């Protein structure tokens, strides 16, 4: 029995020792964004890896490996690392793209007397550069940065310009120097750029190493941050967070958090970049706000606003736009109405100027302008133009007998009858004088004109007049003339000929159609 107990106890002790010892087959990798040569960084960070391996054997061999920005992203994509320690902006970007954990701890730098959980950016130029004294002066100046997405050496400074309602630095103004941050300082010193953006503390570190003198540089937009041990031009943002990749279990995360929050055993000054330990995670909302304002990945898309939000935010501009549109549409409507009325008035005036008020036929003015046009057209085509000059027979007697009102009524009827009996659209009848009418027949030979004249004459005979009238009281005499339009002919001749023909018709006893004397009627049938 005693023997069995001894074996059991030894077995428990053995299992216990296995559980407590480091799992040599296991590796935990913490990927760190490096901004100095990787070999140097790897050496400095190995102290942290050794510390974690020793204090938390369950994590196995802990390696803290430096990566460039692109390498770090690839390592996350292929799950080659378990934890990531990077700047806040990159953490937020990776968190959105690859679903990293919430920040587990935040880096503390500085000293025991003055621990720093935040960092900022610096904007500097040479002390004797009188052209740059404030943020406003950065417009159009060459600015040295490591790369465009550098959090502490580009984005922080750009956001400061936005906060001051100034335009951000344009791409063509940047002089890209790459890392480390000392490169930007050198670029300003040797005149490649007028202004440099760097992480706050860079100038102080270089001065402490004897590489530069602080008096060579002046800081733009210097902030009042009291005990912060470096000159800062921007707001301060929380230090780097450490986060776990999705495959890391909560237990493993807890082990790393516990070990990192208790770093008393690592002597101060042994970790790189002044890291002296870790604290519970900071609030990174200020970094996210900055990234949203700058529209940097993953916040490139503009924020979606609801109508309510739009109204709340832009109430007055919207009202101004609506009022302006209302004014413009009212004015346009008014303009439309006015134009329409003007057009109608023009049409009325035109009618008045072209038509005879009593009969509604065209007046002399319109007749002559039509004759002009037809004469030109006839010259072009070589066709003849015919005129019928019409006079109502004994109209004065008619007027005397039945009165002027009846006379007017007879004129209206005659006019209407003439108009009705002209079949072609281009034929035109006008009131020529008191009881005289004139008909223009374009492209018409004399024979055809005589036909038309006869038709008109007959149709007038058919007019039913006042019931008391016994005999056909109204007849017309028509003088017909037709002319070719060669160069020697004038339109006045045509009228003269028609006049002569009319005279002839009257002389021949009225109510007939005549051609001018001396011309042979091509066709004339009664």
């Amino acid at each position, binding site marked *: 029995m005693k023997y069995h107990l001894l074996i059991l106890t030894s077995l428990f002790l053995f299992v216990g020792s296995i559980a407590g010892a480091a799992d040599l087959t296991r590796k935990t990798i913490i990927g760190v964004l490096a901004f100095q040569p990787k070999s140097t960084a790897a050496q400095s960070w190995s102290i942290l890896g050794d510390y974690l391996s020793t204090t938390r054997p369950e994590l196995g061999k802990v390696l803290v490996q430096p990566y460039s920005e692109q390498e770090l992203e690839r390592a996350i994509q292929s799950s080659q690392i378990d934890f990531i320690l990077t700047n806040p902006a990159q953490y937020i970007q990776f968190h959105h793209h690859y679903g990293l954990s919430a920040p587990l701890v935040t880096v503390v730098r500085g000293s025991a007397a003055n621990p720093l959980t*935040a960092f900022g950016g610096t904007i500097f130029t040479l002390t004797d550069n009188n052209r740059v004294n404030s943020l406003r002066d950065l417009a159009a100046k060459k600015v040295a940065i490591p790369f465009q997405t550098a959090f502490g050496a580009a984005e922080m400074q750009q956001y400061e310009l936005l906060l001051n309602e100034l335009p951000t630095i344009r791409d063509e103004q940047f002089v890209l120097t790459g890392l480390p941050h000392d490169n930007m300082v050198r670029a300003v010193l040797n005149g490649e750029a007028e202004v440099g953006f760097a992480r706050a503390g860079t100038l102080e570190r270089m001065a402490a190493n004897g590489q530069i003198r602080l008096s060579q540089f002046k800081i733009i937009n210097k902030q009042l941050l009291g005990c912060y041990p470096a000159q800062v031009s921007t707001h301060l943002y929380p230090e780097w967070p450490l986060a776990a990749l999705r495959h890391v279990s909560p237990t493993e995360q807890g082990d790393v958090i516990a070990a990192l929050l208790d770093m008393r055993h690592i002597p101060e000054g042994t970790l790189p970049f002044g890291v002296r330990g870790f604290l519970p995670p900071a609030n990174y909302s*200020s970094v996210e706000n900055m990234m949203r304002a700058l529209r940097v990945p993953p916040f490139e898309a503009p924020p979606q606003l609801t109508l309510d939000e739009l109204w709340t935010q832009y109430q007055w501009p919207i009202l101004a736009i609506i009022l302006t549109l209302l004014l413009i549409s009212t004015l346009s409507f008014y303009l439309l109405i006015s134009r329409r009325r003007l057009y109608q008035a023009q049409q009325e005036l035109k009618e008045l100027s072209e038509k005879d008020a009593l009969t509604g036929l065209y007046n002399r003015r319109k007749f002559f302008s039509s004759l002009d046009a037809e004469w030109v057209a006839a010259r072009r085509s070589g066709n003849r133009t015919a005129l019928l000059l019409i006079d109502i027979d004994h109209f004065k007697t008619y007027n005397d007998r039945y009165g002027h009102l009846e006379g007017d009524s007879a004129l209206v009827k005659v006019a209407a009858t003439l108009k009705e009996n002209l079949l072609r659209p281009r034929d035109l009848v006008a009131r020529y004088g008191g009881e005289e009418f004139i008909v223009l027949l374009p492209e018409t030979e004399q024979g055809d004109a005589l036909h038309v004249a006869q038709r008109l004459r007959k149709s007038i005979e058919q007019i039913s007049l006042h019931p008391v009238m016994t005999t056909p009281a109204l007849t017309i005499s028509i003088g017909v003339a037709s002319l070719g339009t060669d160069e020697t002919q004038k339109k006045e001749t045509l009228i003269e000929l028609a006049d002569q023909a009319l005279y002839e018709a009257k002389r021949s006893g009225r109510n007939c159609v005549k051609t001018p004397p001396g011309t042979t009627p091509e066709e004339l049938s009664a």
Partner: protein
Amino acid sequence: MGFIVKTIHYTLTALLLCCSLSACPKQEGAPARIAFHPWIGYESLALCQQERFIDPKRVELVPSQSLSHSSDLLRNGSVDAAALTLDEVLKLRQEGVQLTVILIFDLSVGADIALARPGINDAAQLKGKTIGLEQSALGQLMLTAILERAQLDIDQVHLHYCPVPKHGQLWQESDIDALITYLPLPKEIRSNAVELFDSRQLPNTIRDVLAVRSDRLEALRPAWEHILKEHFHLLSRLLSEDPDTLHRLACLLGYSIQQTAEVLRKISFPCLKCNRTYLNGTPEQMTRLTSNLIRIMQRAELLSGDIRLDGLVDNSFLPRT
């Protein structure tokens, strides 16, 4: 036609009116002057100024040296408003300076403390002992509350008045047994003191407020609305321990970062919703806001018997959202 012409005429007139109204400054005349002395609860004002949130045409901040200096500036009318403790507001109203509280900046939840020499572990042990304190309403208030708890009368203790900035020296050099002071503690006190009492045991009593002279309340309405809006704009930074804000506060007050963070944890900043409730003026809220304070102040003979509370609070200046 006449209708159209009239419509156009009216539309144009309305448009011109709108343009001229929007071009007009929101407030005529000089900016509203607000006095404030160095205290972390009031520093949202200074931070707003640093961040250029404050329109200088509307609001001018007037730094004062102390609470009593701010009160003097209000009394003689050289400022329109001041950041004060609520007890100071009641005292000034009793003197005849009509004030209206439009914002509660903060509540003390441990920032005001009473310390004692090692060996004194209970307030009752203060009988016959010397207590150092500032000669202010706040000092009297804390003293009265401690004595009430210890069931002691004022004549059972000795008092040594001394301004807060000299409390470190007082603790080291004088033979006082206890000290009523507020955070941050000077380094001379930190190691060898026992905490007897703090303002968490005086709930809803010590409040820092923005008090406006009642006669300038409406005339300067746009200015009050502006400053309150910007205070709440900045408030989230104070609540989130934003490192930038911590550094700026430390610089403004001359504290270390750790001291600033410690004091920030011991005061509470009421949100907009809380402010709206506290300042709604209903009898229930007025009792909640003032009853404990008035009782202790009357006991300390800082206030006489009849207190008029009409027009003491107004929540209509708070931002709507």
